[in-house]
């Protein structure tokens, strides 16, 4: 798990979660590629976590739409990345 600290940081931010319409999806896989596995650390919002079955799953609520995961998995196609619908997602108060 990402540990409580990242949640304390994300709690400060402002989000409008588009319930039921996550803008990033991880394609079904049995064993994750090294690139996908690296997202558990590389994602600045700690959205990626390893399940007990060894696969990688995403909870996109705290996502800051930086694009790191899309860039890192561009050759494996394991991540379907898109912008949230207009007005949804992270809303920077300062930026």
């Amino acid at each position, binding site marked *: 798990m990402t540990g409580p600290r990242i949640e304390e940081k994300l709690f400060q931010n*402002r989000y409008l979660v588009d319930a039921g319409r996550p803008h990033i999806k991880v394609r079904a896989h049995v064993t994750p590629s090294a690139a996908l596995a690296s997202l558990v650390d590389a994602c600045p919002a700690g959205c990626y976590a390893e399940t007990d079955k060894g696969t990688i799953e995403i909870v996109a609520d705290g996502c800051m739409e930086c694009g790191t995961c899309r860039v890192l998995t561009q050759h494996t196609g394991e991540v379907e990345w898109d912008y949230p*619908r*207009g007005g949804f997602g992270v809303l920077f108060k300062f930026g």
Partner: protein
Amino acid sequence: MHSVVCIKQVPDSAQIRVHPVTNTIMRQGVPTVINPYDLFAIEEALRLRDRLGGTVTVLTMGPPSAEESLRKALTFGADRAVLLTDRFFAGSDTLATSYALAQALRKIGESWGPPDLVFTGKQTIDGDTAQVGPGIARRLGLNQLTYVAGIDALDLGAGIITVRRRSEGGVQELTTRLPALITMLEGTNEIRRGRVADALRAARAEVTIWNAAQAGITELTLCGLRGSPTVVKRVFAPTARAETAAFIELRDQTPADIAEALLAEITTRLPGIEDELLRHAAGY
């Protein structure tokens, strides 16, 4: 059919922070939003218009910057927007607010036809009083329908509306005559995203701006601080509870022992809980 939706621009309360040390309200960087409860009112009015035709007017009372929320409401698809803004309104409590809004609603009636339905949000996230709706209904003689979960029937010709509203311990289904005032329960619908044409029209639309006089508000003693019987004497931060949990002793206890200890702890800390649970258990 003419519906008017009263909305309010409020600080996004989830973002309000009280500085832990200086106990001050930190407003810098706190964005404003349309009061979330009002979105259900806007959507319900737009759905009625889609079904029965007519127009939807959005009205707000606030500072000039509240125009931003009106533009957002226009983007959802509202037909026109009115901003009631005047320094006389500063410091209004709910009684003074309902007076000003009621007067403005009369003026809107004269300008674009008397409203068949006036919508307000169930309450605001900054005031939370849920009194402005009833106040407007009382002043304009509108039939008051609060905590409405759904509009089941609306016969414009006969001027009859049938709704389901939340009441104590259940849901009431009742019918009344138009014009009526409706406050929508949260979760009854989901605000739509405006179409491209709505967004373009909203970006270019003229927002009607009225001061007190233009809104037909002549009794200035009924507005703002002077018109407000209630006044805020003190604002302060709740003292956060510091101490952590009292832990149940575990020393090689079986789950059953732990459960008994936990049950005892619960019943001692909540004295009346046992007979309440009994009443529940007996299907009282």
